[in-house]
């Protein structure tokens, strides 16, 4: 019967729409609004080849691991935008991968409640391919003070990086960690303070990966990405919203 009602509703609604929009597979209440924010009027389609890998539940809402994998569209990617529909600050990152880097990135984020987490991949033809997964959470990750807010350790270690290269059968993997409070600005009397830009450079001077980060990325970010060529040397450069720049050979 539910279907009958839905069908009635649809048949009434369709004539007023120029294009019947694909329904959101995650049934998020904010999908339409988010789509306007991040995709605008561009053509898009839901595509389950765009992987957003998450745990089922946010055990620690200040450190939720997320992997976005768009390898299925390799070589045809302009940029990847990731966001969490129901976070107070939705945007997580925008990623511009070079063809020499595997379009897959892992990091950890803060979530305020259970939410759909999306990755929208803009191809060179100008079509967005949207993937996503639902995360269950008790919440509170964005309005919990960072550990740094109660501990001055970060002040003398800001921007310190540790990194490691892991050779793989093909190419290799970099994982690095940087000391930064990544304050969202949503906690009373703690202004926003977070890393906005990450650039991975090859020794030939190419920008292999450019990442624009937003406040939901977790404190002391740990970022993992994969390169196709493990004979090259790489370095990483970061800048936060306070204008501090950090650079390190990987």
């Amino acid at each position, binding site marked *: *019967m539910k279907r009958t009602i839905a069908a009635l509703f649809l048949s009434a609604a369709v004539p007023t729409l120029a294009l019947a929009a694909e329904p959101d597979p995650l049934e998020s209440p904010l999908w339409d609004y988010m789509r306007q924010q991040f995709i605008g009027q561009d053509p898009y389609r839901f595509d389950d080849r765009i992987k957003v890998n998450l*745990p089922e*539940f946010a*055990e620690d809402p200040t450190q939720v691991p997320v*992997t976005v994998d768009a390898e299925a569209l390799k070589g045809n990617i302009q940029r990847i935008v990731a966001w969490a529909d129901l976070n107070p600050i939705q945007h997580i990152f925008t990623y511009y991968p070079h063809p020499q880097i595997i379009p897959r990135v*892992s990091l950890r984020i803060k979530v305020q409640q259970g939410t759909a987490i999306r990755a929208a991949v803009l191809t060179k033809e100008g079509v967005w391919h949207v993937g996503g997964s639902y995360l269950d959470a008790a919440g509170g990750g964005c309005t919990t003070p960072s550990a740094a807010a109660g501990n001055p350790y970060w002040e003398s270690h800001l921007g310190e990086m540790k990194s*490691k290269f892991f050779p793989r059968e093909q190419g290799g*993997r970099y*994982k690095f*960690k940087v000391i930064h409070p990544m304050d969202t600005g949503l906690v009373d009397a703690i202004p926003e303070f977070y890393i906005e830009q990450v650039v991975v450079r090859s020794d030939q001077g190419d920008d292999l990966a450019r990442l624009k980060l937003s406040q939901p990325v977790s404190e002391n970010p740990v970022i993992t990405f994969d390169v196709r060529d493990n004979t090259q040397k790489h370095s990483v450069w970061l800048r936060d919203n306070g204008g501090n720049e950090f650079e390190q050979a990987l």
Partner: protein
Amino acid sequence: MRNLVSFMIAIISVLSLTATAAPLEYKLQAEQVAEDTWVLVGKLEDFSNKNGGNIVNTGFIVTDEGVVVIDTGPSLKYGRAMRKVIATVTDKPIRYVFNTHHHPDHFLGNQAFSDLPILSLPKTKVQLAQHGDAFAENMYRMIGDWMRSTEVKLPTETVEPGVLALGGHELQLMAYSGHTGSDLVIFDKKTGVLFSSDIVFYQRALTTPHTPGLKVWLEEIREMKAFNFKLMVPGHGPVVKGMEALEQMEGYLAWLDETLSAAAESGMSMTEVIRIPIKEEYRTVALSQREFERTVAHIYARYEEAVF
């Protein structure tokens, strides 16, 4: 069709009424496991609205001079039900109530014993004061109305490791740390019963939100194996006579530790680690997949840090 809709709504309302009208009751049963010793065995489940958080083993020892209670369960309602069960077994007064550690399923029944001395290790009391309210809040979210009127009631006294003699029983109190940093293990020398608290989980996957480290825990399990007990009451899971519970703990902890180390050394990210299949012999352990995922969230960052 409108008639049909109202009919459906009527049916749904009747169904939900009957569902909510059933009184919440724990139906606790005390099982005598040794001379003077009773255990209330909980389910091998996660907290839910259905089980009211009765997923924990609590127990009591009836000595000539009164009763010693070991843990008070997940809610005021549980604590009250437990006290009733004790009264059906003995008319001796309760002398001491122990909280073995600071996790919510072990102490939130304290209010039902608020007229009595409630004892814990000193560090447990500090942890309860720090995290107790947050645990209680989370329990309201997970089990709902079962928690009605439950509030944190802190231990009234602290105990150091040593021997507590009461009514012909000598209870050896031991401070372990593998599960939460402060875990009270109680050995009754008269009966040979070892109340291992959550240092031992059996047939139910262990939990790690406050572990100081798997290696610490593993070391303590190995220590416990040398202990000459006749019967072990684990914090979760069936009571056992032999080494099977400790062997399961030892094997599972070792597997966890090796798996997380190897994952970190190969550069795996957390979302990849949570997809590692559980070693076959532990797949039948209740909640092993879910608890493995939680463990990765709790401690994998430490393994990553060690590799940098």
